[in-house]
């Protein structure tokens, strides 16, 4: 573990000057950013813009979890990767790009699939969890991680022309299980590789996730706790809806939690985390 930064350098002040002068950031806020540790789970369509704007803003420690390699069919939406890096791990491809943008950040690649055996040791090293994944099993895992480890989870998702964004387990807001105690039928779950997605939709949701992370780090609170942002790109609509709060009876974050450790999430949702083999895609 590296030493914690305790003051901004002259170089920092030059680089971040245009955001330092905002009263909501200031020297204190910029130092909090430099000290912050954020883990982005998924270096795909959502993860790329999240990482790009967190690195640019000076978030000091960025972890990336992804077990996939860059494919040419990713490049219409995964803007940190490149033609030259097709075939190499997305973690490494993302870091190669990010280092060019901001070499002063400490980047850490976790080239693996998160599961109940490795989630705790990885996620406990970070302050904020960004859910930029593409499957239900990992979403339950990350929500439980937020509750078990006491960290907020900034969660984005997208499919076709639509996107959704909400923050779980922040102050009195709900966790994923408060909203969805029971997983959806496996046959109703479609991911971007199967269902398609307009690339800029993940760009919009990802940049909004980055904003939410920055707000949480500088102490402005979450904008989308107990709320969900809905984007319909083809309808041209952005709406914010009001969600329930934390459920007393929630098995994860309620008064008497039954979920006291990570479980087998693929078994729980009844489908493989990577969703490679779903067949009926009605929803």
């Amino acid at each position, binding site marked *: 573990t590296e030493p914690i930064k305790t003051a901004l350098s002259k170089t920092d002040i030059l680089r971040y000057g245009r955001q330092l002068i905002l009263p909501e950031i200031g020297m204190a806020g910029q130092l909090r950013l430099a000290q912050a540790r954020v883990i982005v789970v*998924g270096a*795909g*369509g*959502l*993860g790329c813009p999240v990482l790009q704007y967190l690195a640019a803003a000076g978030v000091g420690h960025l972890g990336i979890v992804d077990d996939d390699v860059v494919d040419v069919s990713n490049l219409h939406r995964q803007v940190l990767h490149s033609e030259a890096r097709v075939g190499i791990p997305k973690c490494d491809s993302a870091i190669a790009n990010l280092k060019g943008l901001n070499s002063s950040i400490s980047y850490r690649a976790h080239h693996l699939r998160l599961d109940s055996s490795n989630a705790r040791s990885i996620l406990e090293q970070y302050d904020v969890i960004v859910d*930029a*994944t*593409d*499957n*239900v099993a990992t*979403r339950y895992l990350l929500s439980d991680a937020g509750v078990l480890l006491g960290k907020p989870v900034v969660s*984005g*998702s*997208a*499919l*076709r022309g*639509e*996107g*959704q964004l909400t923050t779980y387990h922040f102050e009195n807001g709900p966790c994923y299980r408060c*909203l*969805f*105690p*029971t*997983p*959806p*039928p496996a*046959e*109703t*779950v*479609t*991911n*971007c*590789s199967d*269902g398609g*997605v307009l690339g800029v939709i*993940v760009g919009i949701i990802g940049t909004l996730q980055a904003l939410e992370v920055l707000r949480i780090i500088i102490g402005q609170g979450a904008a989308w706790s107990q709320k*969900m942002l*809905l984007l*319909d790109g083809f*309808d041209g*609509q952005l*709406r*914010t*809806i*009001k*969600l*329930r709060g934390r459920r007393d009876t929630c098995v994860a974050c309620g008064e008497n939690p039954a979920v006291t450790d990570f479980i087998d999430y693929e078994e729980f949702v009844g489908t493989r985390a990577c*969703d490679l083999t779903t067949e009926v895609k*009605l*929803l």
Partner: protein
Amino acid sequence: CASPFAPQLHCRCCLASGGAELLVRGVKRHNLELPDAVQKMRDLLAWVRTTLIAERPELFMQNDTIRPGILVLINDTDWELTDELDYVLREGDSIVFISTLHGG
């Protein structure tokens, strides 16, 4: 029906998104004229199931309520903050069914 940015009057607007629209004829916006028998959300769900859903109603409802993974909004608010199945519909209410997305 009226856009969510305008006041909704004289219509009971029913919206589906996130994929839930694929269950209701692939259409996102439905301007519903409901029969008098439909008074509560309980009645509306049953009415949508029999009237709008052509096949696989179990992907819309399970055990007389909405199936897991679909959020129900009444006037842009999670129906858990209302009386849910017992909510009494009012002229102009906007009802939204959102299938949560999992891609990224």
